[in-house]
């Protein structure tokens, strides 16, 4: 009886594990949690993989059956080892799906910030053409109106003297989450290339009217004047804040180049 039960569990295990991974993937997509994990280009791969895993589970159950007479099931120790193997495939991913938060927290932000002993500002990695196009659009916008820009746009501008000259003193509108670090107030966004494991924070500094009961990592929209002060050759993008107000987390919490 136990032998038969063990054989049945062992037979259904691959289909159960593959289906569970398929369910986790589909749920992650349907719930929108996928936006917290992967950059847009990888999301369709997860959908395709989930459908393939369901298909493989069905094909496995339809095509195969355990050999009953000629080959005995594994010995008890081997059976336990196999069971442990299937549990190892199942449990961590289900737990991670259930327990993973919607965004990386403050400790990880500190651990992943690049440290520049001169300015403490994260240098901007070279971005793709999207960011350059955004910057061009920002530079061409009406100078009398606040220009909606991303944190990354201001950091990109700070790396080119000609663009600094064109943008210095412009009114801007920026969304990000606030972090107070070593007496300085920063507006931060995570940028992600592939997945949350490679995400790095990029920040600008805030001054002026930043008063308010803001919690660390709270999402805010600020309107103010962009400046690019230079210390020992290092330019720090900076916004002198006029107004500041809480906003909902953006639909895409990470910026992807």
């Amino acid at each position, binding site marked *: 009886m136990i032998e038969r039960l063990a054989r049945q569990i062992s037979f259904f295990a691959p289909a159960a594990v593959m289906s569970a991974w398929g369910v986790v993937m589909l749920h992650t997509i349907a719930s929108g949690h996928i936006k917290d994990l992967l950059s847009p280009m990888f999301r369709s791969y*997860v959908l395709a993989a989930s459908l393939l895993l369901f298909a493989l589970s069905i094909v496995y159950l339809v095509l195969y059956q355990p050999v009953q007479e000629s080959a005995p099931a594994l010995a008890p120790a081997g059976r336990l080892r196999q069971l442990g193997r299937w549990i190892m495939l199942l449990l961590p991913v289900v737990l991670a799906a259930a327990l993973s*938060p919607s965004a990386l927290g403050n400790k990880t932000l500190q651990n992943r910030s690049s440290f520049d002993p001169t300015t403490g500002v994260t240098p901007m990695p070279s971005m793709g053409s999207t960011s350059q196009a955004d910057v061009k659009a920002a530079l061409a916008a009406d100078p009398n109106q606040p220009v909606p820009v991303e944190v990354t746009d201001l950091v990109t501008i700070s790396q080119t003297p000609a663009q600094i000259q064109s943008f210095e003193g412009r009114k801007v509108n920026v969304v990000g989450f606030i972090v107070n670090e070593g007496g300085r107030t920063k507006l931060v966004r995570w940028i992600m290339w592939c997945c949350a494991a490679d995400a790095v924070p990029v920040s600008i500094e805030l001054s002026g009217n930043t008063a308010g009961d803001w919690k660390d990592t709270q999402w805010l929209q600020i309107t103010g004047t962009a400046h690019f002060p230079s210390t020992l050759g290092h330019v720090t993008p900076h916004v002198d804040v006029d107004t500041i107000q809480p906003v909902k987390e953006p639909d895409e919490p990470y910026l992807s180049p």
Partner: protein
Amino acid sequence: MVSRFSFGATRPAFSDNLLTVFFAAFDLPTAPASAGISWPDVALSFFAIVMEGAPFLLLGAIVSGLVDVFLPAGLIKDWLPRSKTQGIFAALGAGLIFPLCECGAMPIVQRLIRKGVPPAVATTYMLAAPALNPLAMFSTWLAFRNQDPWLMVLLRFGFSLAVLIFIGFWLARLRPDQMLRAETITGSPRQARELSPNPGLVLTPRPGLSLGGLQQFTGAVIRDFTGVLLFLVIGAAVAAIFSTGFNRNLLAPIGQSAFLGPLAGILLAQLLCLCSTTDAFIIAAFAPFSVPAKIAFLVAGPIIDLKLYWLYRSAYQARFVHALWFRALVATFLLTLLYSLQP
């Protein structure tokens, strides 16, 4: 941006204490303290890595299944050069032409070995595909386009090639039983258990549903996918802990040192476990590192890191993987140190 769970603990990590002693010994500026580790963030990073890696692993398993069904073993042997040295260079050339990510490579390489490709050649291809592929070089150019991009591409490619040739010649001297796990080595004739999609049971086609090629294909895909997935899960867990909890600024004070900079680059690559098409963007932004430290990071990471260590263990013996790890890191260190010490 609020975590749904808040059971993260802040306590000085062992690595902090060790590094403090290290910095004091070399009279280096003190590194900033680690912020501690947030376990919910580890869960998020782990989940992100497996969600990113699993589709590529499945793709690799499908290609492996197609190779199993449609590629006759004799054909691959006919394609390959007879001499081992030429085989190594052919594998390096294939790595240049056929881009393959680390996760997808494992099932394909195991299948190629079972089809009769010499393990030294298949392993060289597995190491070369992520390290030398054109996408990795293009992303390096893009990431460093404000910081002498052609020099970075040239150094990355040249040093990676040199390290891979060194490893390739070492691999050519090894016997398959010195490299591979017993179950990876080709059994001839093939055993029923090897053909089964479930390693715990011997399975048979249902009566009236013997579909030959389709059955062989699905069996290979399921077995390869679930077989390597376990190692991806373990590797992702290790990578998530270090990429989340290790404060990369701890290595900043030694990043500009001529001798210790390359070591710092290699160590960071081992801990962050990034894909070869992404790593350049991360390290390009890391101002405290010198060029040799960045190159060491870019050369060592795609060949082996803490995640790849576990993926390699799905096919290779632990002793072999340790020897590969040691050789890859020492070769990377010596090359980047030579570059670092040039006048």
